């Protein structure tokens, strides 16, 4: 519901949330000022309506900004500040410090203004979420110009992603700081790639024997499937060509490779996505011990 500012003020007054002081403060000039502000923003501008209410009463709201609205907002603020006496700015800084939407203050007019702003906050916050603005709240003492806000948003995104990576890469928890973590990640990726290379070399050496063993491979896997399934499936598909595997993949057959430690973890049907972490941890441990020794033995 988009009420115009004055309508909202009137509504509040009816609800007796606004003291009659408010209008005194505004003065009759103030009301005109508000009207002018509204017309400046444009009444028919649907996009900005949500923000308009947010912003016009924004004198005591912390200095939030969004990227699209940057230009208008600055002018807004100037006007709204001009409307109010100096002591209102204290409320503003207070709000900035707390950074919360509901603040209890002793001063009546401040609380009333905040009451209004809370309402507008709650109303417009849903609109804001719909519209997908990058809404960054400025903290006290920090610059609110466009560039530093963009910079800060970007940095927050990066740190969020780094945290996700921290969960994936084992051993990242101990290291603090971006550089250390990045180092760990780089080393981990490199070691994984080297392992793949090494294993593929080994495979190429073993390749002539592969053909003989492929049938064995398939039979072993089918046996693993059979042990998991409650029903007795016939053993005839054992000699099925490897190319027919894709057909059965999507069925209920648990086509898992036999590997000493990992099968117990990986072939269980109760596996949830959280076990990615578990198995990667044990993989890392296994690989750490295995690969080091195997690297040395290979050379």
């Amino acid at each position, binding site marked *: 519901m988009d009420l115009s500012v004055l309508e909202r003020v009137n509504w509040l007054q009816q609800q007796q949330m606004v003291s009659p002081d408010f209008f005194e403060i505004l003065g009759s000039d103030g009301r005109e000022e508000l009207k002018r502000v509204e017309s400046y923003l444009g009444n028919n501008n649907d996009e900005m309506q949500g923000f308009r209410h947010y912003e016009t009463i924004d004198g005591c709201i912390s200095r939030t900004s969004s990227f699209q609205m940057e230009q208008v907002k600055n002018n807004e603020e100037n006007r709204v500040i001009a409307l109010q006496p100096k002591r209102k700015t204290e409320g503003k800084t207070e709000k900035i410090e707390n950074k919360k939407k509901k603040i209890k203050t002793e001063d009546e007019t401040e609380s009333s203004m905040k009451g209004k702003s809370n309402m507008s906050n709650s109303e417009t916050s849903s609109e804001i979420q719909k519209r997908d603005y990058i809404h960054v709240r400025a903290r006290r003492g920090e610059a609110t110009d466009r560039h530093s806000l963009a910079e800060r948003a970007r940095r927050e995104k*990066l740190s969020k992603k780094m945290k*996700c*990576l921290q969960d*994936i*890469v084992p051993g990242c928890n101990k290291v603090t700081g*971006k*550089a250390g973590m*990045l*180092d760990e*990640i*780089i*080393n*981990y*990726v*490199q070691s*994984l*790639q*080297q*392992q*793949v*290379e090494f*294993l*593929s070399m080994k*495979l*190429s050496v*073993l*390749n002539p024997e*592969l*053909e003989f*063993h*492929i049938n*064995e*491979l398939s039979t*072993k896997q089918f046996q693993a499937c059979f042990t998991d399934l*409650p*029903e007795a499936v016939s053993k005839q598909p054992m000699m099925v060509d*490897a*190319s027919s*595997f*894709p057909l059965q*993949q*999507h*069925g*209920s057959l648990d*086509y*898992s*490779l036999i*590997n000493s430690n*990992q099968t117990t973890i*990986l*072939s269980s*049907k109760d*596996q949830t*996505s959280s*076990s*990615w972490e578990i198995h*990667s941890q044990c*993989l*890392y441990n296994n*690989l750490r011990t295995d690969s080091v020794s195997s690297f040395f033995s290979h050379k």
Partner: protein
Amino acid sequence: MERQIINKKKRVFSVEPNKIPPSEVFRRKYTSHLVPALKKLNMNKNSPQINQLSVKHEVDMALALSAQEFSWSRFLLQKLSSSNNPTTTSSSSNGIRIQERSGKEGGGDEDGETEEKLRELQKLLPGGEEMNVEEMLSEIGNYIKCLELQTIALKSIVQDTT
């Protein structure tokens, strides 16, 4: 799950595909791509020299085919299918370089260091140099997971054949 078995003949896909954990899906796809490819390779080529590279090629191809929802895999696929001489995704010289550099930069510029490291990471990821940093970081997570699964699969294949 039993109903799935009974309906196996009628239905190719499981009733609740989400219940198959993604790691399983990846591994199935991977081995189903790799094993036949290796067999074919074995039958066709006889000279041992080409073998190593082509095996590597097949390994990478299997990786790219089994993880097609990621942008790095699309890049890898493109690279592999376009080039006749298969190139390796990793090189050991990278590792040496990293260690040297971290030794030099003791009290270097912090942001510069981070930037450089991010660039290194970009080089490791296939197609990473063409992405911006945020995208690259999320792709790296997927890439690491798939590499891990790939190593498990390869290990098991190697172990089974020895």
